[in-house]
């Protein structure tokens, strides 16, 4: 980005040049935040409702615009028009500031998230460390919200969220290490650059240990993002709305925007670390076409991850608190250690990597996916073949006999 601004600014020097840089940064930042992050957070709520509806044999929102697509805009307008209620007993400054902290932690992560080979706001040399650090700032905001509301649901939701997020940060960070070990760099573009366009060249298939790392990272990222099956902080059947109980109107919308936008951050991180990022074969030397193709591939992979998370939310029940903590400390932390040290041992034993191991891991994963696809096909065919009218009469006959 700096090189691009240099060509624009020509030979401006001194303060003029600094101001030019600043204006460029603000424009690029605003384009990413207002042109991508906010619409994404809105559209994904619509997409999630449509996908759930499809999975649960319902229709979902379909009134506002084609396929109900403008539902998220209508919801946004409604939330802006809602009254902002702050309870008298709440700690007002903290209560009002908490959504800002959550939003800062969420938006600042986008500095390091690549869009294509050349499109990234800043390719920091500590990229992935920076993203992990900044996304944990969200905990502070959630804890502030929970404590300042002076409500028992909020307090329980807030401390649950804090415990959960800090616990799952350990396996999440440990599961980043296999990818970093293989790349030898923390920079996001550097990690992607070490992978190839073909699926078996991704870090995920390097060995069974990195495959384990991929699974652990995905699970821990789900828990850090408070997604089902780990959405205990706002478990509506136990805690009303968790830490957001006392929030109304736009203020609560800000929390949920950060949560839904976080889906993209998780998807992009998984794609960067383990799924080959924006790598496409070099099919042309035109940089514009190349970047467009890379952007398409990266967005496609990230959105596939987002779809998978939405699917999980429609499928899995919520875990209990004790199961949540046991899963983290008794299973995921030791397994993540195994994943890191397995990868490191393999690197020492086979410094040039093992092509056979890579292909074997890839073949096993492909086999499992094909097996699963056939199972899904079987159930789909069976559910379509069932005649529901005969089913209901059969059930009534069964009752009467």
């Amino acid at each position, binding site marked *: *980005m700096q090189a691009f601004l240099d060509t624009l600014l020509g030979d401006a020097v001194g303060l003029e040049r600094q101001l030019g*840089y*600043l204006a460029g*940064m603000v424009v690029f*930042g605003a384009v990413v*935040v207002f042109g991508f992050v906010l619409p994404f957070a809105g559209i994904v709520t619509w997409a999630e409702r449509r996908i759930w509806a499809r999975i649960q044999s319902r229709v979902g929102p379909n009134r506002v615009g084609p396929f109900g697509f403008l539902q998220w805009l209508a919801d946004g307008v409604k939330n*802006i*028009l*809602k*009254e*902002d*209620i702050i*309870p*008298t007993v*709440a700690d007002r400054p903290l209560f009002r500031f908490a959504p*800002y902290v959550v*939003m*800062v*932690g*969420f*938006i*600042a992560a986008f*500095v390091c998230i690549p869009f294509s080979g050349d499109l990234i706001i*800043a*390719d*920091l040399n500590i990229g992935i460390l*920076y993203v992990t650090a900044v996304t944990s700032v969200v905990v502070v905001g959630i804890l502030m919200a929970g404590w300042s*509301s002076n*409500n028992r*649901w*909020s*307090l*329980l939701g807030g401390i649950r969220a*804090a*415990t959960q997020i*800090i616990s799952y940060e*350990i396996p999440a*960070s440990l599961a980043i*290490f296999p990818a970093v*070990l293989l790349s*030898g760099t923390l920079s996001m573009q550097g990690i992607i650059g070490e992978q190839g366009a073909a699926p078996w060249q991704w870090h995920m298939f390097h060995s069974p240990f990195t495959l384990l790392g991929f699974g652990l990272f995905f699970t821990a990222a789900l828990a850090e993002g408070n997604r089902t099956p780990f959405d205990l902080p706002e478990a509506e059947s136990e805690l*009303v709305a968790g830490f957001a*109980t006392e929030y109304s*109107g*736009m203020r609560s919308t*800000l929390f949920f925007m950060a949560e839904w936008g976080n889906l993209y951050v998780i998807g992009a991180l998984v794609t960067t670390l383990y799924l080959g990022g924006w790598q496409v074969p070099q099919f042309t030397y035109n940089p514009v076409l190349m970047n467009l193709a890379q952007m398409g591939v990266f967005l496609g992979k990230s959105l596939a991850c987002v779809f998978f998370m939405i699917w999980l939310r429609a499928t899995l029940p919520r875990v209990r608190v*004790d199961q949540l*903590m*046991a899963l983290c*400390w*008794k299973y995921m*932390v030791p397994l993540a*250690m195994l994943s*890191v*040290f397995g990868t*490191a*041992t393999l*690197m*020492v034993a086979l*410094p040039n990597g093992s092509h056979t191991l890579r292909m074997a891991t890839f073949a096993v994963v492909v086999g499992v996916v094909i097996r699963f696809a056939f199972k899904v096909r079987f159930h789909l065919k069976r559910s379509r073949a069932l005649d529901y009218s005969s089913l209901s009469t059969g059930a009534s006959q069964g009752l009467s006999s």
Partner: protein
Amino acid sequence: MLFDYANILVFVALGLFMPAMMMGLGALLRPHNPEKRKLTTYECGEEVSGNSWINFNIRFYLVALIFIVFDVEVAFIYPVVTVFGDWVADGRGLFALVEILIFVGILLAGLVYVWTKGDLVWLKSVVTQGDEPEPTLPGGPLPGGTLPGRVVPGGSRHVAD
């Protein structure tokens, strides 16, 4: 490089500006008529039972303590895993591997200690009367002579939240 880090400041500023803009826009449009009952704490419609700034369960602090140890460990491993590939290329891979294993091994001993002490168990039985027999859950095996599914009152209870 400083240019790259300046972008972080710009994004933090945008992260503060964005909610402020939405709240400001809302302030122009939304109604504002507070009322005493509307501003009470929400406790499912019941009368508010008092302040919520109370002591909460000690286990949350315990998890935070374990977390700090492991987070520091993770922070120390970050630079090591970054340069590990170079060490392997230099032929010093085994040395580096053994060194991290010793470092992490000491911390893993800590995890094992916490685990065996039972501090990772979230649900704990609190036995209030030591001489009472273990309670029988409904559907469990029948101890001789007791009614099926009888839970000894006050004998043992699960503390959860």
